[in-house]
């Protein structure tokens, strides 16, 4: 057991170190997120009521697309240089190693999106009362996006044009998360109780954490064959 934790800890450290040494990889999705959300006030004009109404959807769709953009680096580098093969041959469950990689991926893409979202909320004229809901919903939602995206990334590994294919595979699966994530923020605006939204997001996350690492591991084994 301690060996397993050591392996997992080392793998997490490794993915963070590698990503930090290629800082453009981390900054690209974040900057993309900021730019996409900033385009809406420019396109629609600065009318506060319009912006406020569309804000939850725009911020959530932005987060979705930014996560998409970062998916290709989840496994592709390790696949090309052969380290993924070594992971598949490690004496530990591949699903746990995959979960570790997804956790590292979320730490460097999902978490920054969550942290910068209040700033974009100000820009989109969201009332302060909605900030907490927005941040919390993204905090619950972005790990689901990373977990779902991992399955798509694993399935399209080594394919030509895999990037586009990932979007086609993964974006439809993102819709429930988007509906309840954006819905919770919109709910605060009109003053309805958002408990149900959060319960559902939490349930999605629990389900995703339980099953998707195994699905990803199975997809990786197919890609490596």
């Amino acid at each position, binding site marked *: 057991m301690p*060996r*397993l934790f*050591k*392996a997992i*800890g*080392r*793998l997490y450290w*490794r993915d963070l*170190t*590698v990503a930090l*040494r*290629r800082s453009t990889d981390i900054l690209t999705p974040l900057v993309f997120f900021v730019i996409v959300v900033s385009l809406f006030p420019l396109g629609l004009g600065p009318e506060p009521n319009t912006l406020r109404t569309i804000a939850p959807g725009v911020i959530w769709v932005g987060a979705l697309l930014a996560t998409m953009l970062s998916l290709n680096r989840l496994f592709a*580098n*390790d696949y*090309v*240089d*052969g*380290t993924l*093969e*070594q*992971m*598949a*041959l*490690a*004496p*530990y*469950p591949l699903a746990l*190693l995959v979960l570790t990689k997804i956790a590292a991926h979320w730490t460097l893409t999902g978490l920054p999106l969550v942290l910068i979202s209040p700033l974009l909320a100000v820009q989109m004229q969201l009332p302060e009362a909605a900030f907490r809901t927005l941040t919390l919903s993204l905090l619950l939602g972005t790990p689901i996006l990373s977990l779902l995206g991992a399955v798509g990334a694993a399935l399209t590994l080594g394919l030509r044009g895999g990037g586009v294919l990932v979007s086609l595979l993964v974006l439809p699966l993102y819709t429930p998360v988007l509906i309840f994530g954006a819905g919770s923020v919109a709910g605060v605006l009109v003053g309805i109780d958002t408990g149900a939204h959060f319960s559902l997001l939490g349930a999605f996350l629990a389900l995703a954490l339980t099953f998707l690492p195994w699905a990803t591991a199975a997809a990786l084994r197919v890609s*490596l*064959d």
Partner: protein
Amino acid sequence: MLETVDLECVRGDRPLFSHLSFTLKPGELLHVTGVNGSGKTTLLRTLCGLTRPQTGEIRWNGTAIRKLGDDYHAQLAYVGHTNGIQGDLTPAENLKVATNLSGVADGAEIPATLKRLGLSAYHRFPAKILSQGQKRRLALARLMVERKPLWILDEPLSGLDVDSVSLMTTILMEHLAQGGLIIITSHQDIDIQTKTVLQIRIN
């Protein structure tokens, strides 16, 4: 002890080889030869468990490797065509990750191993600046620090200079002398003076 019974492998729709049976005991080396495309890499990947054989069975100490799963992986070190090196980490960091993932060694011998393979001068640089041959040596350094009994090596000598080849040969002989098992593909003749070298030619 590694055994295969009636192994048959296909790649896509193309049959590669069938009825392959052999037994490899501790201290023995199996040299797989064959023309390009004859299925050497597929055989090695099948023996690792990365690819499934069409029919037949592979056994480690009498138990099928499909049943052993992770317990078999704990015995096995594989160096394929790719080196398994992350270019943004230093050579020592790469080996540290490899040892932790392999679950066998603690990595205390990493500096000594890097020194022996002539890579200690590069310990502060990312592995991507290494040349092809040096990367290959780093991949082989991984074998040494992981300390697994079964080594499966796909063209380990490609890209190595004369000195590195002879150093590698010495390392292989040491591993055999300690009771290790080696399965290797190589187009070069391997100059190993040991009592048991099995040859398989597939075509």
